[in-house]
């Protein structure tokens, strides 16, 4: 019952939409920041990233992106992988890649403040 709940229903659908809206707004903001950056180099890039609002925005973006990628990859696997064992292995692989990515970017965001 619980495994069925994970795969169906309103929750993933809503996660996909809400994260999509945040990701789209963040992408527009990033492109705007890039376009107005001019000849900015390493120091300006760090300064941008270490501004609390940008750190929070990037952190939220990472979370939104990983959730969005999970629902999307889950849909693809459900559509094309029918063998239960291979399907579970594919789910596991995607989850490991996404969680590892999350840990890695959390490390970057938190430690770059210290260095």
């Amino acid at each position, binding site marked *: 019952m619980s495994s069925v709940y994970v795969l169906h229903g309103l929750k993933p659908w809503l996660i996909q939409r809400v994260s999509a809206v945040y990701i*789209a707004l963040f992408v527009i903001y990033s492109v705007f920041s890039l376009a107005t950056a001019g000849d900015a180099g390493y120091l300006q*890039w760090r300064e941008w990233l270490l501004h609390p609002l940008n750190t929070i925005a990037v952190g939220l973006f990472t979370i939104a992106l990983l959730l969005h990628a999970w629902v999307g*990859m889950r849909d693809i696997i459900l559509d094309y992988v029918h063998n239960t064992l291979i399907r579970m292995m594919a789910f596991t692989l995607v989850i490991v890649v996404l969680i590892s990515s999350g840990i890695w970017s959390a490390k970057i965001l938190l430690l770059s403040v210290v260095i």
Partner: protein
Amino acid sequence: MTVKRPVYLNLFKIRLPTTGIVSFAHRVSGFLLFLAIPFSIYVLDLSVTSSQGYEQGLQLLQQPVIRIILLLLVWAIVHHMLAGIRYLLLDFDIAIDKAGSNMTAWTVIVAEVCIMAVYVWGVML
């Protein structure tokens, strides 16, 4: 009516409608963007840890192979976003009929060609 089997399907005569092309490309672009996540985080890590790493990251992104991959990824972001906005409109029952959804699918294609043209001329060249 009995159908003679096997049925011969000429795949070159079955044309995926524009809405179908936009929809399938949305899936392909999403998959490509998933594959790009670890690489993107690697470049982010390089770029913030030291000024040498930042230069190293810049050089990496200048590699011809990487530039082609980046072009593909920029297309993936642009298409995924535009087709995604189209899906959000469909969720609100906007352009849900055949003519309307066909029109928005074409709008996505035209808009992404324009944005990619601006990107190639403005950023890549």
